[in-house]
């Protein structure tokens, strides 16, 4: 059976690269005695795949791992077993069974929600001015961004890949998975961006476009990126925003 595991990647785990994460879960599954299936051949691997990798330093409360297992206890029990062997920053949030023949998390990903904020000590001197300038940026009919592919650098319109974007000033301290928070109310950007193999827009690229827009570069590494959710598009609802479903909701709890 195919299982989708949702987990956080925050705390020190934000410095784990994608390969480290893969190795981490290979060993964690073994410590938790999860009945993962293995590929055949002389160098068998656990049947395992992940959703789109996060940049180093970014945090998330919605990472996904798909695994194939031969058997499973109820979801709550599996979550508990895995959490008993986790490291700081990685918490298992759910264990759900996917319908037969499901595509991998990576393959179905269509969009993702991000929260972007300034790391403690890097806030702009004039938050209100910054917010106003960002609102102006968002209101442009065309948002020019620079996309770098292997061969060339090209200017493209990011607008179609930005589903929604908003900026507020608020106290983020009650949010459980964030790092590098300021002690006070701070600028918070929330955005839903296209993600996945067709259209993929990273929040960092939006922020670079903003730098270009106002002709001023943010201090490098001033911004903290946090992923809040990843979505797939439900069949037959290619255009509507309501057609998005979180990767977690595609699976069912095992009772």
């Amino acid at each position: 059976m195919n299982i989708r595991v949702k987990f956080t990647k925050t705390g020190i785990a934000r410095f784990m690269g994608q390969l480290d994460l893969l190795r981490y879960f290979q060993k964690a599954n073994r410590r938790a005695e999860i009945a993962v299936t293995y590929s055949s051949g002389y160098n068998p691997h656990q049947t395992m795949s992940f959703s789109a990798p996060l940049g180093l330093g970014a945090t998330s409360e919605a990472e996904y791992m798909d695994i194939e297992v031969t058997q499973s206890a109820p979801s709550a029990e599996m979550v508990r077993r895995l959490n008993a062997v986790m490291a700081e920053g990685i918490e298992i949030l759910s264990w759900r069974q996917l319908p037969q023949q499901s595509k991998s998390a990576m393959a179905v990903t269509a969009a993702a929600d991000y929260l972007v904020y300034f790391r403690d000590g890097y806030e702009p001197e004039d938050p209100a001015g910054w917010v106003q300038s960002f609102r102006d940026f968002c209101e442009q009919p065309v948002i020019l961004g620079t996309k770098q592919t292997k061969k060339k650098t090209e200017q493209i319109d990011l607008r179609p890949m930005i589903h929604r974007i908003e900026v507020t000033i608020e106290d983020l301290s009650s949010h459980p998975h964030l790092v590098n928070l300021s002690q006070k109310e701070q600028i918070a950007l929330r955005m839903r961006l296209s993600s996945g193999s067709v259209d993929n827009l990273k929040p960092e690229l939006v922020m670079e476009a903003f730098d270009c827009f106002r002709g001023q570069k943010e201090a490098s590494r001033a911004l903290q990126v946090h992923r809040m959710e990843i979505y797939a598009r439900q069949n037959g609802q290619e255009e509507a925003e309501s057609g998005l479903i979180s990767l977690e909701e595609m699976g069912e709890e095992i009772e």
Partner: protein
Amino acid sequence: MRKLALTDDILLQIEKPIRYVGGEINSCGKDFDSVEIHFAMCFPDVYEIGMSHLGIQILYDMFNHWEDTMCDRVYSPWLDLDKLMREQQIPLFAVESQRPVKSFEFLGITLQYEMCYTNVLQILDLSQIPLRASQRGEDDPIVIGGGPCAYNPEPIAPFFDLFYIGEGETQYRTILDLYKENKAAGGSRTRFLEMAAQVPGIYVPAFYDTAYNEDGTIASFTANNPHAKNRIVKEIVRNISDTYYPEKPIVPFLRATQDRVVLEIQRGCIRGCRFCQAGMVYRPVRERSLEFLKNMAQKMIANTGHEEITLSSLSSSDYSGLKELVNFLMTTLEGKHVNIALPSLRIDAFSLDVMGKVQDIRKSSITFAPEAGSQRMRDVINKNLTEEVIVNGAGMAFEAGWNKVKLYFMLGLPTETTEDMEAIAVLSDQIARRYYEIPKEQRNGRVSISASTSFFVPKPFTPLQWAQMFSREEYLTRARTVNHAMKAQLNHKSLSYHWHDADVTVLEGVFARGDRKVADAIECAYKMGCIYDAWGESFHYDRWLQAFEACGLSIDFYTTRQRDLDEILPWDFIDTGVTKEFLKREWRRAMNGETTPNCRQACSGCGVMKFGGGVCFEHKS
């Protein structure tokens, strides 16, 4: 969440930031403020190397078993972080607690290879601890050295408050208790060192003076403090089935060099190879019981989730319960996708059978370490491996489907002739010929024999400790001789040959047999920017040459000079149990090309029987 010592700004500028944040699976994570003694255990090299070291895992586990103690780990920051820490004056910290090393009571540094000596200075410097013990104050950590290089501590003696000679499991509890006692009594740092100097195995360099002859050799080595012992006898664990061993070893997030469960099946070696320091200083051989190992193996695999287990020892084939252990592991791990690695194993029917079951024969290779090409040379070094055994072993492997062989040799051994050097090529060719004896239709493609040579570095407490080394030019000439001979062989297209760097060899030779004067050159080279000397890309031979010159020291004095058998050697005050008389006897036998039987064949009276354990007493109880 722990507060990290480095900001995200720094962590995201450097390679592999996960090296510096701790929090690994099975790390202990004791509360810094809730214990009395803080011990920072350091491996002075990059994290992935340091994390792979079994000795630290054993001691880390032992220290953290004690309620009053927390043991944390320290590694060398890689060059990128090193630069930033210097620029921004960030003090070096331990990875788990993220606290500055300077706030610990002890800093223990393991000395696994000589080429880490400048990294020791890097650790002290970045920790903001004075490099020399003589300059440290009451608030500085007590800096302790241990590990194999501590058997000749002299070249780095001024940088350490004390050295622990021998196996760490035995005396640390006493040392910590003395520390607490002295602290409670309001005693000074010097008073503590005096107390520690009386503990078996502990050497406090400041309590000894060396006087030199005009020719630079040692005239005398004497204690200058009434608490200091005249001889330091190494510490050993008599029963290694009843001692500390990490049931829950730390699993790093990064792929460490040893990304597997390491099961130490025995300590010491019966073989008596005359070049091998480990084979001499870890005597006598002590085996861990099968029950201990079976139990540990299962727990460690369950607690780490590792996909491989390796049986570690100097010569695994000599472990008397090997077959039973391997069969047990193969049975219990069946279907669990755990690979069994068997390094340092003699190639015979048993090992090939096991390897055939756990490895992909088409991809793996068979390794031999004949160490020398000719039988005469192997007799000199007492390497008990004949050409017949090697060729037959390779033959069996070829018939079972292997077609890759790795061979390890040394060049620059004492009494080595051109013929001995060329014999490396001849032996490689013999093995290739054996492959082509197999009918063509049964062969698995072409054979590949890859031979490599390192240059021999004489080590303290070995029978070859008096051997002369050669100049770097001479080493390279010898490597070229082998290379030419390789090309002249019938099967030269199946042979490949690599040789190690000669510059590093020369320096390693100086550090291995150096005296206290060498410390000045090490400090000087460090101040000229030398660190990570074990890493080719950051090794600067020219700076080292300048450093020796600036300190008025001759490299040749330590390397190419002929030592007299009666000369006082810098490490003579240490007693490893193996007597100097035995070493001299072995040196003479080496010069005559006479071999010596191994410990199980016949006792050669090396002296370690006085420790009252191990192979010396097998069949005697």
